[in-house]
């Protein structure tokens, strides 16, 4: 009995073993006999011809399995290759200078090979667009609302009756209001192209005042085709409403652009407002102090390559200290011997600026250095489809105001600020009161230089970090300080913002070159009339 039981148990165990091993055998085999459509599509991908790849993309899309989706996604990331010898389609991951490959259909690991053994399946912009579009349609049923929204937005770029019909079925069940709204627009746009008068009118009604570019294009197209007078009037009214809205948004956008340009100007100039405005030193090396700040950002990023997001924050105090120290060295080493001789100061600091530029060229090479923009600073804040504000500019406006506020507080509320103001108003009297004017000079110059360095951190996020960075801003900086009124921080703020906004309003109709010229002419005329700028200093200090 026991023996029989043992026997049956054994045989059951053996049977189980056979089953599992056959499953193990079957598994990869099943993956490789992927649907014939998938095999055909991947076969098509072994080519150099874009048109053939495009066909394969359509086939993969209609096949629709997870594997097909994976291949499409890999195509998008340029990871699909084929082996030159046996035309096997593989997915490749770059490992240093070689590629780790696995079969595109079975996922079987095929080891690491040299680049020249492989040929990349060609994908260009046009194909990537196609892939994104088909992936998006696959995403329409994605549980994630953002993915669905992206999918619908893809359709919005190319609205047609077919996609409208598809969405109409799904609209009922859509829980997310944003997605539903986008779907509504696609459906309405689809209706615009339909032949039915009633539907068209409904659609125009619905789209009235919507600022999405696709809406405007759709309505315009209908206006060309339509021959019904009432419908035409409706469309025109809708278009007028849209245009009026766009007008307002475009003015708002221009103001934003102007303020952001203005804040860059203020940041660049505010350090100068201290050295030139308060101390009266014409510092031609100011631009290079900005440049040093930008290079400090670059070095900080080199030191912490895995924390790009934080590096920019760390760079702010670092740049302040580095540029500030360089400033103090310049002041102690050169400028203090030249107080009261503006021409010599100008020449000496100009020389210093050349020295600093060439030093940077020698240390970092004349090539520009790449400073990465952290991810939290890139992208847009999309208020609606007609108005979106770029995040980096928004941060820089805020940053500019913070720097201004900090500087203002230092000058008004601290002992150093008091001494700075005292020395700048009446040096002899201040000394008589026991202020160590030399130390105050050095610290003031260091403060102005440090702020220039901080401006460099902001500029590194907008423009090239190269030896010529400073030269591009020195003229603008002087312009802002002189226009605002020498020795007045508020003047600098107001004048920077004014010039920025004026520039941006002139630019659309005069062009960038002429706009700049017009602004310069305006300043020349203004200075003729009011030589002391917008906010002249009054009283005894003004004579000093």
């Amino acid at each position, binding site marked *: 009995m026991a023996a029989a039981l043992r026997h049956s148990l054994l045989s059951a165990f053996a049977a189980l073993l056979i089953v599992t091993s056959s499953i193990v055998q079957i598994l990869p085999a099943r993956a490789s006999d992927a649907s014939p459509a998938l095999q055909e599509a991947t076969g098509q991908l072994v080519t150099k011809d*874009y048109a053939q790849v495009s066909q394969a993309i359509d086939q993969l899309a209609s096949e629709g399995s997870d594997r097909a989706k994976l291949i499409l996604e890999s195509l998008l990331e*340029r990871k699909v290759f084929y082996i030159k010898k046996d035309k096997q389609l593989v997915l490749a991951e770059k490992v240093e200078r070689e590629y780790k490959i696995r079969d595109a259909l079975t996922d079987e690991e095929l080891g690491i090979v040299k680049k*020249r053994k492989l040929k*990349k399946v*060609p994908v*260009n*912009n*046009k194909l*990537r*667009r196609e892939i*994104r579009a088909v992936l998006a349609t696959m995403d329409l049923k994605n549980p994630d609302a953002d993915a669905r929204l992206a999918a619908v937005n893809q359709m919005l770029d190319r609205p047609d009756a077919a996609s409208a019909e598809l969405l109409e079925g799904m609209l009922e069940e859509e829980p997310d209001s944003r997605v539903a709204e986008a779907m509504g627009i696609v459906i309405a746009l689809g209706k615009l192209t339909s032949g039915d008068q009633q539907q068209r009118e409904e659609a125009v009604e619905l789209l009235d005042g919507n600022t999405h*570019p*696709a809406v405007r*294009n759709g309505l315009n*197209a209908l206006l060309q085709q339509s021959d019904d007078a009432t419908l035409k009037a409706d469309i025109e009214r809708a278009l007028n409403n849209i245009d009026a809205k766009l007008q307002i948004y475009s003015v708002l*956008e*221009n103001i934003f*652009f102007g303020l*952001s*340009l203005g804040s*860059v100007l203020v940041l660049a100039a505010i350090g100068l407002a201290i050295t030139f405005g308060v101390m009266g030193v014409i510092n031609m090396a100011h631009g290079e102090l900005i440049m040093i700040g930008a290079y400090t950002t670059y070095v900080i990023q080199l030191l912490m390559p895995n924390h790009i997001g934080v590096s920019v924050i760390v760079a702010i105090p670092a740049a302040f200290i580095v540029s500030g120290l360089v400033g103090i060295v310049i002041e102690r080493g050169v400028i203090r011997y030249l107080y009261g001789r503006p021409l010599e100061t100008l020449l000496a600091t100009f020389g210093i600026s050349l020295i600093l530029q*060439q030093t940077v*060229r020698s240390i970092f090479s*004349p*090539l*520009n*250095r*790449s*400073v*990465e*923009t952290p991810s939290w600073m*890139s*992208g*847009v804040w*999309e208020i609606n489809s007609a108005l*979106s504000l*770029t*995040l*980096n*500019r928004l941060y820089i406006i805020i940053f500019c105001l913070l720097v201004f506020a900090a500087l203002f507080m230092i000058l008004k509320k601290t002992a150093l600020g008091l001494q700075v103001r005292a020395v700048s108003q009446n040096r002899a009297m201040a000394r008589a009161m026991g202020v160590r004017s030399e130390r105050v000079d050095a610290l003031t110059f260091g403060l102005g230089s440090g702020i220039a360095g901080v401006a460099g951190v902001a500029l590194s996020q*907008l*423009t*090239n970090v*190269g030896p*010529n960075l400073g030269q*591009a801003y020195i003229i603008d900086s002087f312009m802002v300080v002189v226009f605002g009124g020498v020795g007045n921080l508020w003047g600098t703020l107001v004048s920077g913002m004014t010039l920025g906004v004026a*520039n*941006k309003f002139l*630019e*659309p109709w005069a*062009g*960038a*070159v002429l706009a*700049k010229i017009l602004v310069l002419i305006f300043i020349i005329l203004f200075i003729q009339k009011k030589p002391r700028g917008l906010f002249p200093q009054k009283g005894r200090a003004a004579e000093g």
Partner: protein
Amino acid sequence: MDSYKTKLKLTAAGVMAALTLSSASIAQAEETIKVGILHSLSGTMAISETTLKDTMLMLIEEQNKKGGVLGKKLEAVVVDPASNWPLFAEKARELLSKHEVAAIFGNWTSVSRKSVLPVVEELNGLLFYPVQYEAEESSKNVFYTGAAPNQQAIPAVDYLMNEIGVKRWVLAGTDYVYPRTTNKILEAYLKAKGVPEKDIMINYTPFGHSDWQSIVSDIKKFGSAGKKTAVVSTINGDANVPFYKELGNQGISAEDIPVVAFSVGEEELSGIDTKPLVGHLAAWNYFMSVDADENEEFIEAWHKFIKDKKRVTNDPMEAHYIGFNMWVKAVEKAGTTDSDAVQEAIIGVAVPNLTGGFSAMMPNHHITKPVLIGEIQDDGQFDVVWETSGLVAGDAWSDFLPGSKDIISDWRAPLSCGNYNVKTFKCSGQNYE
């Protein structure tokens, strides 16, 4: 003050004497052929031109390893025109009359070439110019190894029009001669292809423009009219970074509005955070990523010479490679370095280029090249997505400008003219005798 001046004079004289002595001693040691290198090593253009100086030094060193030319060693004479256009002319004169160089390889900007032009024509020198330019020029003494507009701009536009289906065009450039002329040619070309005026937007910005907000926002609006839009960019070097950054920030990807650039190469990309640029295009006659044996050898030699494995190669370097080899071959063919003999011998000379083919010097002093379109990758390299089926010969006088469409250039006898009008049968313009 006086004593200071005398001191200065004395030092100067001393330095000069030392210089003459040293060069004399070299000359005594061995008779050499001198090659002038006229590239800025300081100032704003140093960023691009220093590399070309190094390329020339490498090519000369390699040629000397092979035994030089005509049994003589080559000797490089390097001068620094310091990104100062008039100084280019002075330095060219110095190279030709003082050092008596057999040929000059140099210049980057068109304005510097224009400044050198009268000097090389007066002294009958040879100048090899390696950078893409606006053409509308053909001098007896200059060999243009960079691309003319029909070897870069026009094929790029064809690619966008036929392969990508672009219908609306933004021509954006920096405000100076190369973009203005190129855009004039492109505008005429687009109109000839039936693109209506309202679908072309032309925009110029100052050098080093850094605030691109309004322009990018305009491009975005221009591109949202329902037709496929592309930007053809002749924006000069430095201004490109903020431009691409702003495109990225305003959410314009290469798939929405591709930008094809004529001044952005591997060298420029090495100083840029390439993330926002991926997928945008550039048109050149050479990319470092081209799969060819000559190219691999060249890159290897370059890395060995410059002692830095990270340095990239670019299109103007290839132009110098071609130009230098053409000159060597022409000198050997002529059996002398005499300027007139070389000018005659070099026409029709073909040498391997770095893309696996041959480039030949045409009678108009321009060369034949393939045209490649590359997409920018995240590693700062280009992925070639399209190339012309054959070689394209450089056209000195554009067929799309009303002023120059009847003009041809042919430096062979009996025409021997760089500016010949086929309607009026008159030869005019530079170097007209």
